[in-house]
């Protein structure tokens, strides 16, 4: 087996396509993904103001909107249809409408409406705009309420207390800085690596076990088909683990993602995850015996895997079928383990379940590969 491994590593520099797939491609992916999310929380979304009142109050609200970190007031629209057109064309992501006589109605106690329109097709940006506008208008109105109470002779501190009888103390569990980037990157890197590990392993296996190749040489070198297969796969396991380690150094070092849990459990999970991903590729190849069809099979399983991990839309809210499909993919459990052990500091007894699932998936895949290999060996033995 060691002989096969040594041969595989020796051959790597002579196969530029394979070396590109297992080393260059993952490193480029790491750099691109890290680059996209490096800036952190999105700020400065463009919004339009439809100020039909043109009063001190409407100008104060506009100032508050522009001061909100989420927003920048870039346009002034004269009516709703102009604002709508600006949103549809993408010039702005939302618009705030202040009706005529806003200030007068407000002083009279008629409770006029301030309306925020936002583009919820682009939901991530839209919800930021809604939040920014809500807070800015709240702040402007709170200032007004405060001055009314002070005008009635209340002390500033007393007035502040009276404004909010039940204040909400909001705490973001596990993610106090509310930096969603940690979670996205922690999940995107394994997803992309899962695709590459599966596909590259299938490709490496195809170079020796494909039609027109002579796996016998390898089998003689390793002394049997199992050591030959292991010798073929393990060098790439080491390479992918190194790349995963590199991404961890970048995440936890450079991007300063907190690491609160057990490194050992994460490392064990990483080994099982890489092996399971590789075995998806190996299984796809030994089943189809054709790289093209194997690549399509790998694509079907690994390409949509991100959605099933539940980072955007949570797994618990998915249908049972979608949950089951996600549970069969190694990345789902590995990403859960990473998030649990790095950010949530989950107790080990809960997190061990993810590792157990990874081991089960890896075991089942290994058994399927062995069954198919022995079937192929029998076929070759019987002329």
């Amino acid at each position, binding site marked *: 087996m060691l002989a096969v491994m040594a041969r595989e590593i020796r051959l790597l520099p002579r196969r530029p396509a394979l070396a590109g797939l297992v080393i260059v491609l993952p490193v480029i992916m790491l750099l691109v993904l890290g680059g*996209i999310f490096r800036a952190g929380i999105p700020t400065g979304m463009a919004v339009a103001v439809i100020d039909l009142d043109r009063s001190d109050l409407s100008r104060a609200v506009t100032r508050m909107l522009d001061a909100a970190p989420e927003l920048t007031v870039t346009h002034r629209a004269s009516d709703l249809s102009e604002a709508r057109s600006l949103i549809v064309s993408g010039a702005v992501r939302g618009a705030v409408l202040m009706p005529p006589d806003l200030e007068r109605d407000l002083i009279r106690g008629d409770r006029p409406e301030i309306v925020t329109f936002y583009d919820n097709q682009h939901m991530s940006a839209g919800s930021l705009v809604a939040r920014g506008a*809500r807070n800015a208008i709240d702040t402007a109105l709170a200032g007004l309420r405060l001055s009314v109470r002070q005008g009635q002779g209340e002390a500033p501190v007393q007035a502040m207390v009276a404004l909010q009888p039940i204040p909400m*103390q*909001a705490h973001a569990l596990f993610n106090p800085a509310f930096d969603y980037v940690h979670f996205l990157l922690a999940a995107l890197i394994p997803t992309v690596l899962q695709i590459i590990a599966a*596909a590259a392993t299938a490709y490496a296996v195809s170079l020796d076990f494909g039609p027109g190749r002579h796996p016998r040489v390898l089998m003689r070198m390793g002394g049997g088909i199992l050591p030959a297969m292991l010798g073929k796969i393990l060098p790439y396991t080491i390479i992918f683990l190194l790349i995963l380690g590199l991404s961890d150094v970048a995440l936890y070092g450079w991007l300063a993602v907190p690491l609160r849990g057990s490194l050992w459990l994460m490392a064990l999970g990483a080994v099982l995850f890489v092996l399971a991903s590789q075995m998806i590729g190996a299984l796809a190849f030994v089943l189809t015996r054709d790289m*093209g069809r194997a690549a399509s099979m790998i694509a079907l399983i690994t390409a*949509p895997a991100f959605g099933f991990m539940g980072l955007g839309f*949570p797994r618990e809210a998915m*249908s049972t079928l979608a949950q089951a499909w996600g549970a069969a993919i190694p990345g789902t459990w590995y990403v859960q383990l990473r998030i649990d052990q790095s950010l949530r500091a989950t107790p080990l007894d809960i997190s061990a379940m993810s590792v157990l699932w990874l081991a089960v998936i890896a075991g089942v895949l290994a058994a399927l590969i062995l069954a198919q290999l022995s079937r192929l060996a029998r076929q070759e033995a019987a002329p």
Partner: protein
Amino acid sequence: MSPLATAFRAELAAVLGDKQVRMIVLLALILYAVIYPLPYRAELLRDVPVVLVDQDGSTASADLARRVDASEAVALTHRAPDMAEATRLVHERRAYGVMLIPDGFERALLRGDQSPVALYADASYFLMYQRVMQGAAVPLRQMGAEIEAGRLIAQGTPRAVATAQVSPAVQVEVPLFNPAAGYATYVLPAAFVLILQQTMMMGLALAATRRGPLPGHPVWRLMGRAGAWLAIWAGLLPIYLIVLPVLYGLPILGGPGALMMLGLPFVLAAGFLAQLVAALFRCGEVVQVVLLALGLPFFFLSGFAWPVEAIPAHLNAVAQLIPSTPAIDGLVRVTQMGATLPQIAPVLWHLWALAGGLGLTVLAVETRRTARQGHRLPT
């Protein structure tokens, strides 16, 4: 037969006749359309489970809990005596938030003091965090306003004046184009455009790596091929962008005319890019793997899910060279937001510029290769 017609027929045969290419292009359509949207079928998050830690046990705390439980976003599914037990439930993912009503909540309210309530929401899941905060904030604010108004009335302020003083203006929020904030409505229209581009590029690049030499000037050969792509994707594009969304019950505002006008340069640009990828990697299997791995980065580079405002400028500049970046933006605006062509003219020009630029690059590469082959095999 003219070189143009020969190239047209050869490309049609290469895409529709080759079993593997046909499998990528057609089977991918069916399987991706089934598997990809599977996680998002539920669309909305309702009644996110939250743990209640009620240390006050009073009438007021029970009233607050009832109000929060009644909200659409959250449900108080568990009760725990302390934070340690509540946090354990969150770790197990059986709940996504904790509402802590401290001892003395009611007494502080009766005395006229501020009486805070703590809300812990699981911020590892952005959507869950938002729902938990939303679900609790609205009832809390409402109860707070009622109490403030009640105090003012008790001091002798007329009811109407008290209400106006507590909330001098009404804040209305109108979410446009996806009013229910459905997740499938949000993500699928953009994802379908990306899947279309990736499967198309995989198929065409694979066909390109297997192509034999053809007669005629590269210009005619390339035009013939482009004609074949347009003929095939004139059928497939509406399936991805009209039929599939309708099957999944997504709202469609835009007309098919604007869709096809945007689709034309998009198909050309993606086809030309596929030729370049094929020329760069040569081996069909490698091309497939590379395009597979690029899918997710392309999606996030497009500025749809991750706002373009947050993408570093140099990466964003590179992203503009990928056809999916303008195509996702333009097509989503047309189909989901009802944009007219003049409203998205910059996107249309962007796509045509890409198609033109990439087309010329392919032409340069192929002319050089033909010249080199000519040197090697003088005929």
